[in-house]
């Protein structure tokens, strides 16, 4: 297999995985347990972390964009796309930066990513609604991101170590 074909294939597989994860997550939303708008586990973030660690920043970005676009085609609307894109991009940026720092583990990276994702969503909501009202949801969401970030962080450590080099024959 040529290099670029391999890259395309693994990006496609990871995109599909991310999509499947976010759909699966939608089936059992956390908001049932805890009614906070925008609250979710963020399993699709696993794929972003993985792509950042084992592929490249560029591929992680492409996978994220493809996931958000396809996700909104599958079930959402343009509003949902705006939320997931801003959240996802902010999370990606923050995590890409933090991964370069020494001293952190994927727990810290994921927690920061989850917090960044929530911040991005709220910023998007503020922009769409044109009022600062959604900001009141941010503090509880940030606190929740400690838990969701730690869970996805733990999962991503397993993933990154069990599947070290993707796409190798």
């Amino acid at each position, binding site marked *: 297999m040529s290099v670029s074909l391999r890259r395309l294939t693994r990006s496609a597989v990871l995109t599909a995985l991310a999509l499947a994860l976010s759909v699966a997550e939608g089936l059992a939303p956390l908001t049932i347990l805890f009614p906070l708008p925008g609250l979710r586990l963020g399993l699709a973030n696993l794929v972003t972390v993985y792509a950042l660690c084992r592929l490249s920043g560029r591929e992680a970005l*492409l996978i994220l964009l493809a996931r958000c*676009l396809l996700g909104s085609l599958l079930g959402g609307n343009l509003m949902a796309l705006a939320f997931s894109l801003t959240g996802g991009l902010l999370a990606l940026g923050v995590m890409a930066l933090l991964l370069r720092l020494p001293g952190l583990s994927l727990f810290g990276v994921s927690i920061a990513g989850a917090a960044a994702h929530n911040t991005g969503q709220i910023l998007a909501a503020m922009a769409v609604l044109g009022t600062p009202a959604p900001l009141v949801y941010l503090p509880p969401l940030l606190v929740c991101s400690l838990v969701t970030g730690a869970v996805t962080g733990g999962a991503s450590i397993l993933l990154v170590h069990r599947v070290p080099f993707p796409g190798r024959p």
Partner: protein
Amino acid sequence: MKRFLPFLCCLFLLAGCAAPASSAEPEQAQFFSMDTVMSIRVYSGGGLDAIQAARQEIEGLDKLLSRTDPDSQISALNSHAGDGLQVSLDAEVANLLSFAKSVSQLLPGCFDVTIAPVMDAWGFTTQERHIPSADTLSAAMALVDSNGLIVDEQASSARLERAGMEVDLGAVAKGFAAGQADAVLRQQGVTSALLDLGGNVTVIGAKPDGTAWQVAVKDPQNTSEALCVLSLEDQTASTSGGYERYFEENGQIYHHIIDPKTGYPADSGLLSVTVISADHMLADALSTALFVAGPDAALDFWRSREDIELVLCTQDNRVIVTEGLEAGYRPAGEDRGYTYEIARR
């Protein structure tokens, strides 16, 4: 950059095919009619023209049905009480009268469309409110008898058998108006709207975002708070309670829902009754009748039919919600000492 180009294109394409953003601000109008404040809010389809049409419909009905307007058909009917003349009416008025009579038969002793002389004796209609003397009250009570209202739907006419009898459609007119306004709005293409006809809330369709309307039931003991919140679509929620129109005399509170059996304000153990039904007129009429009937009779009545749901607030601070509402309701008054229970069939 080349790689990003397709994605950017996708973004713009997607933006192009997205549904137009729903306007968050509804078209609305507030006006006085039928002796109360009404508001109509239209969220999608129709617009101001539709609201105007609905408002005209309601104001037209008020002209037909008002007891205080000397030119109304109800005034004509009342003024000919006892003289044997069969007063000809619009078909819709005759239908409404016979519906009101049928409610008297559904819940005997709890509802009477000819209660008006007693309401007058208490001063609830126009004058200062006061406790009537025993003589005045018994004279007025002698005139209350819905069997003395003869309606001929075929000929679309009616008469009152004894002089002094009077019909007051106050307990059904708002529900009837809601039904007519609902039809007018839908004709005009309205798919999502909210009508508040003096506390009778009628919802058309769902909210623009597709979720059900959230309609709060007022706490009868603290009217600035909600008792519970209901999820409704294409239904009317009508509430009757003694807390809105009342007066105090000698330290006692007298409210405006008169028990046709006693001639006194109903004291059935209920503080308020909310009836939810897709039949707007039925919801309005039953809320008054079931308030008089009391909690046990109201629940028995609910079990006997499929087309209504109830929220009852009792004097001992229980809120009884019938099971058809269970999925979409949320309690809101636990901190004020209410306990909530679901009534099963």
